[in-house]
């Protein structure tokens, strides 16, 4: 089925000068915002996005339309923050969109701003994305010069300013309230919720934070209609009222031990195996798969016998993962040491914990220390129990932290130790007294 899929989000990739306004317009660009402005009220646009059942592409999968509807009706000022602080290990789809098709991103922002009545949009872009920053800056200037931004856009009452705001190297600023604090000029410490950003966000005003890819989806929902969007992906399970479904296209980033690492656009729900074998060219050197991270490091691991799992919003929980996350797929071949992988995972989260909540600050550091002990041949088999106890105790899900960073640190630990227990035990047994670097 996915064989016949025609890319939409990446349709302009590879087109010469795809970043330029005239090229974007010649390929049907800015017709969606025109349609929104001329044919729909802001409330109707919100309703279309609600009906499309679009879920946020940044990691949490929260319904986009519902997020917009949470804005108080009597608000006078609304801010739109575009989350381009893409930092989840293995994830680079926002960068691909911004570098290759910046006007698609801007058009999505414009439609979202119209729908939410925001007159100011900040694109919070991670510090490392210098090229994407430059290309977006040029695209924004082109849009202003063409009357697509600023006052009375396309001769209507709609006005919007878009500003780029550079981050400064902190993973936690991808969390929406960490991003808001950072935009305000403070350390990126996530806020306790409620109040949610929709009620009290940046500069204490009603705020919507949306991911770059989510906003690109909005553009195509306006262009092609709700039914088109609902025709792609995995429908909600009619027997499960809590299943919100997995509709629309998704950008899957594949990296690690594969022949063709890259960003692939496919309908939500593509089986992990199909993505790796048919699109990413299979595992390098004809080797087998040891494990896969299916949705960015925070989501945990799949084992080789779980590769038929569809990559959608509900299937990954069934095999013990945290969720779809950013849909960044990292593949490890059969020769990879799961202990080494988990060691790097723990190092990352211990480094990126913002230090605000004690369970996360201490827990991520303890887990990293235990992994160091294991690698140094100083661990006991009982250390695995301590590791799991910490992992089960830190995060939003056990209710001990403000944001989900600790859950993201815990899930690789839980899934690695529980799914590869024998390898850990064997490693501890045979490594005893042997030191590695």
């Amino acid at each position, binding site marked *: 089925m996915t064989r016949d899929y025609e890319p939409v989000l990446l349709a302009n990739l590879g087109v010469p000068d795809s970043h330029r306004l005239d090229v974007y317009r010649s390929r049907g660009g800015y017709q969606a915002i025109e349609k929104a402005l001329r044919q729909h009220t802001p409330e109707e646009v919100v309703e279309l996005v609600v009906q499309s059942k679009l879920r946020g592409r940044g990691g949490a999968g929260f319904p986009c339309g519902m997020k917009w509807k949470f804005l108080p009706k009597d608000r006078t000022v609304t801010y739109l923050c575009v989350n381009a602080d*893409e*930092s*989840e*290990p*293995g*994830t*680079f789809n*926002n*960068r691909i969109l911004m570098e290759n098709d910046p006007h698609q991103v801007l058009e999505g922002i414009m439609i979202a701003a119209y729908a939410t009545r925001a007159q*100011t949009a900040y694109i919070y872009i*991670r*510090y*490392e*994305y*210098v*090229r994407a*920053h*430059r290309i977006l*800056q040029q695209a924004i200037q082109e849009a202003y010069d063409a009357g697509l931004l600023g006052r009375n856009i396309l001769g209507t009452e709609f006005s919007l*300013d878009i*500003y780029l*705001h*550079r*981050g*400064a*190297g*902190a*993973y936690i600023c991808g969390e929406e309230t960490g991003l808001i604090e*950072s*935009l*305000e*000029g*403070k*350390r*990126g410490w996530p806020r306790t919720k409620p109040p949610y950003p929709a009620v009290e966000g940046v*500069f204490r005003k009603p705020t919507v934070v949306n991911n770059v890819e989510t906003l690109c989806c909005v553009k195509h929902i306006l262009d092609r209609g709700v039914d088109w969007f609902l025709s792609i992906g995995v429908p909600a399970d009619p027997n499960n009222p809590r299943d919100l479904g997995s509709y629309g296209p998704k950008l899957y*980033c594949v*990296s*690690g*031990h594969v022949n063709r*690492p*890259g*960003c692939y656009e496919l309908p939500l729900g593509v089986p992990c195996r199909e993505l790796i074998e048919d699109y990413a060219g299979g595992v390098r050197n004809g080797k087998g798969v040891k494990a896969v*991270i299916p949705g960015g*490091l925070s989501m945990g691991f799949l084992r080789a016998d779980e590769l038929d799992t569809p990559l959608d919003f509900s299937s990954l929980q069934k095999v013990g993962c945290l969720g779809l996350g950013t849909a*960044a797929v*990292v593949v*490890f071949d059969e020769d*990879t040491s799961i202990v080494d*992988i988990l060691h*790097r*995972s723990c190092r*990352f989260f211990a*480094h*990126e914990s*913002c230090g605000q909540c004690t369970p996360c600050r201490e827990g991520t550091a303890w887990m990293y220390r235990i992994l160091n002990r294991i690698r140094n041949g100083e661990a006991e088999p009982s250390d695995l129990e301590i590791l799991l106890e910490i992992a089960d105790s830190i995060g939003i899900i056990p209710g001990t932290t403000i944001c989900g960073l600790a859950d993201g640190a815990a899930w690789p630990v839980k899934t690695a130790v529980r799914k590869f227990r024998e390898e850990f035990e064997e490693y501890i047994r045979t490594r005893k007294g042997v030191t590695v670097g």
Partner: protein
Amino acid sequence: MSEQTSTGRYLTEAMRQKLNELAPRYPTKQALTLPALHLVQDRYRCIPPEAIVEIAEFLELAPAQVLDTMTFYGSFFRTPDAPLGQFRIWVCRSLPCSLCGGEELLHKVCHRFGVEPGGTSQDGKVTVEPAECLGACELAPCVWVNGEVVKVTTDADLDQLYERLQAGAIGESAQ
């Protein structure tokens, strides 16, 4: 580095003017903290302690507020006696890169430029640091040099990186 400007200030007139241009974008002055720190670091290759005080004065904040923000973020370099080299190299050691040789690459790059991880070459040209995921995993293993991402797999790639850097022909501009 304690290179001061002719006015005896770190926050130059040009920087103040730039910040004044950006100010209407935000309802608070504090929101200019990161832009101000970026301007200072781009110029001095570090954040001199005196600049913290000047930024605080300019933005009507307490120096502790600016310091608090500055120390939270990994991109700001805090040792004025040993500022960043002209070229900052980040070697990605996140999982996708380390699977493709990222850890070894850090040592190779350090060796090629004659520095320790986190160190700066004696001529002040290059600083090499380990980095977390750079968001360029399709290019693994990769390095970031003044904003440009380069895939470095072979010794020839590393030689080319070295040559380009010596010639000053590497890096991206944000504007």
